[in-house]
């Protein structure tokens, strides 16, 4: 496997890096969509993040079940074992970051009959797919807007329910599948289906940096990395470890972070002003503001936190107005300015 470019060596793109970190701190935010220019380090950032996620405790089963989870989120095997023994043995495992490559077939995504066993032994066994592998981790789809429709359908269903239900080839399997969806793409290649877009908690627009110093730095670092990836990774190890510790600390702090009523109220005002559909927008704003507070080591979520993340949490939830040239980003920014002043 090629060596990933270190996360901490990615120049600029602060919004993207921050959003990915927040999704790692609180998976319930609902994933990150990274849309934008070519060559801005979209895939690089996601692969880099995978390398520094802190480990998690998991049961030694196909699905990396959470030993603390309720019965609903355990696989059949673990449920049976828990009923028998009362508890589950667990170990430390890396957080899975699973690629859903274009050209994947449905049998590999949702799981299917285990071909090998069927062919060699004539047995009917279930072979888990990518959704199973991504449980409790990340599912990364590059060029998410080019994903075939029938795969998107399966994905939406599973992402909504946290369960993958397979009924095919005479198999009937249900297993937990909760993952952070991370997608990237370039809007020039086509739009994203609205239902899928809505599934993402945060959306980030990345643009190529236009100032000389940043651009030079990118070229420089990239060149250095290509020449000797191992040495480069070694050089950035300390900085990567620091980010890793930051995630760990924030995850620990997260349950203690409080959201005062005033922050809730201001968030509601903002969402009402922007006319976002449903409560999902509000919930995402609050959750990501809390994750941001945790990331910064704050125990109280303030309006400032909300202001920082509101654009990422709301810009893809605005109803599209094709006649408004200004775009959703500036609409959110305008609303923030009008509500909270500058």
């Amino acid at each position, binding site marked *: *496997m090629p060596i990933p470019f270190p996360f901490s060596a990615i120049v600029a793109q602060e919004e993207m890096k921050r959003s990915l970190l927040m999704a790692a701190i609180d998976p319930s935010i609902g994933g990150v969509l990274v849309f934008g220019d070519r060559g801005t380090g979209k895939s690089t950032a996601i692969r880099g993040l995978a390398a520094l996620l802190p480990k998690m405790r998991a049961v030694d089963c196909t699905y990396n079940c959470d030993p603390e989870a309720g019965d609903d989120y355990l696989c059949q095997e673990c449920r049976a074992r828990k009923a028998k023994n009362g508890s589950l043995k667990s170990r430390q495992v890396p957080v899975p970051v699973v690629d859903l490559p274009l*050209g994947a*077939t449905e049998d*590999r995504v949702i799981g299917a009959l285990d071909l090998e066993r069927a062919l060699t032994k004539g047995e009917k066994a279930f072979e888990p797919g990518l959704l199973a592998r991504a449980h409790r981790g990340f599912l990364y789809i590059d060029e998410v807007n080019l994903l075939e*429709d029938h795969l998107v359908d399966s994905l939406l269903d599973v992402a909504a329910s946290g369960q993958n239900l397979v009924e095919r080839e005479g198999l009937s399997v249900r297993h937990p599948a909760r993952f952070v969806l991370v997608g990237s793409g370039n809007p*020039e*290649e086509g*739009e994203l289906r609205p239902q899928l877009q809505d599934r993402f908690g945060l959306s980030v627009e990345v643009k190529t940096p236009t100032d000389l110093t940043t651009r030079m730095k990118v070229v420089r670092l*990239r060149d250095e990395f290509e020449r000797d990836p191992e040495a480069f990774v070694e050089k950035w190890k300390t900085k990567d470890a620091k980010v890793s510790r930051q995630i760990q600390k924030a995850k620990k702090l997260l349950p203690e972070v409080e959201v005062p009523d005033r922050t809730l109220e201001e968030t509601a005002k903002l969402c009402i002003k922007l006319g976002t559909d449903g409560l999902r927008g509000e919930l995402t704003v609050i959750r990501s503001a809390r994750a941001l507070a945790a990331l910064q080591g704050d125990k109280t979520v303030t309006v400032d936190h909300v202001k920082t993340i509101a654009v990422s949490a709301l810009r893809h939830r605005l109803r599209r107005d094709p006649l408004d040239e200004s775009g959703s980003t500036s609409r959110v920014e305008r609303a923030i300015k009008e509500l909270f002043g500058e």
Partner: protein
Amino acid sequence: MSTPGPNPAVADGGTPAPLQAGPGHSPWDDAVLAAVLMTIDPVGTGGVALRALPGPVRDQWLSIMRDLQPEGTPMRRIPLHVADGRLLGGLDLAATLNAGRPVAEKGLLVEADGGVIELSMAERIAPGTAARLNMAFDSGEVILERDGLTMRTPSRFAVVALDEGVGEDEGLSNALLDRLAFHLELNYVRYDQAIACDYTVEDVLAARPRLPGVMITDAQVETLCNIALALGIPSLRASIFASRVACAHAALEERTEVTDEDLAVAGRLVLAPRATRLPPMEPPPDAEPPPPEPEEPKQDEEQSNQEPQEPQELQDKILEATKAAIPAGLLAQLQMGKLRRSRARATGKAGAVRNAPSRGRPAGVLRGEPRAGQRLNVIETLRAAAPWQRIRREERARAGKPSSRLEIRQDDFRITRFKHKSESTTIFVVDASGSSALHRLAEAKGAVELLLADCYVRRDQVALVAFRGQGAEVLLPPTRSLVRAKRSLAGLPGGGGTPLASGIDLGMMLADGVQRRGGTPVLIVMTDGRANVARDGTGGRTRANEEALAAARMVRSLEIPALVIDTSPRPQPQGRELAKEMGAVYLPLPHADANALNQAVRATAG
């Protein structure tokens, strides 16, 4: 050539004189140089976008490029509509059945690891195929999740994308173009200029080990970045490629440090073809007066003034060299203030594979053999074979050929049937002529945008044809990108005559293409119906009108669902008549608010 010797480049007809900008570099010599540099650093440069029609010149370049590859370099050619299984890999059915266990088949991308992929007719490549290629590019490996197989296989290769596009609208997708360091155009190279190459495999083999040791300084990187900015090249890949190419050239020239000459080569080969604007003119520096470029735009002056002055002189030199390599056609376009439109997806009849019968939602299984475009459903085939295993084995044993393998017979073959919702493509044919433009163009644009928003929600494609003056043109080939659609609408100019027949003709051609690919076209003609320019571009109301009505009848005979939106201030009999001949729904704009328009389009689309 492994020992220091005469510079091979000097022996060449077009001597690359260092930093002497201009006519010294023939496009052919640069094209050959690009082939050499690509071969020295295939992964670092990504490859070559070769815009050329097939012919002796292109063949000559390709044979030079192939001859430069060291022995054992895998060369693969990928056809336009390669199947996923072949491109990425998948289950090797014959071997699987033979061995009685799953056997994987290598895909083309994996086979090409360490070598070169030639992409045929790359301007028409399906977006999905391009995306798969780009993913392998970016990650240096092929990630396979298919047919019960999971594999990650390293795959690093250079691509030679053969772009046979004609005209501005046809060409490689931006995403692919961005990943290839060299963009060559050979259409203007005469056959007698396409001479043999003085570089040999030995030069390449000698340069490769030198490459990792080549040093490029911060100031040099800065120079390349600055030039990229000055030429309006947004993508950072360009600057990265430029520095890789400078290093590769230094290695070729047996240097361990990048020199000005290497930078000039990088500027010429990598940056110049990507320029979207001319560099802003500096107040003449006291160092060296650059060759005069009288028609340069001056708007971006302040941006470049804040740059550090130190490497300025070097940068000016390289910039001049680079500027000289910008093709004349591009200069003309830039001076007209016309932005290079984003290279579009392929138009035309064979362009897309979206609607192939092998895509979409699986809808049941049929008995039958896999033929072109249809996939064998392995699981169902096995299942069909399963009950017979015992009987067949006993049969075989009786025949004296006992075997424990699975016995699959032709009868067992099953193929998956796919249901594919026929995708609709809404083709707007917009009258941008003087008569229409003055009154209604703005409103028409608004209406189109509202409809676009709705098309977007339904995930349909939209295309846009505009007609004015002498003829019609496709402003937007079928696309799903609202961003692009809006951009081309914003750039829609108005004025001139009304070549209505040409507009309908072109819209009809697009619609016909969509129909042939299995999609459903909807033609929306927005006009006041007052044609005054005939198909051949000459004026004359009567003939223009007759031709328009004839074109309309063609639409009806092809059974293309259509809608005529009358954009004249008051509904005119011409519009109504046009709609009648076309078998179209007629909708006068004064009565049409956005909702009515939407409903009409929906009703027409069915």
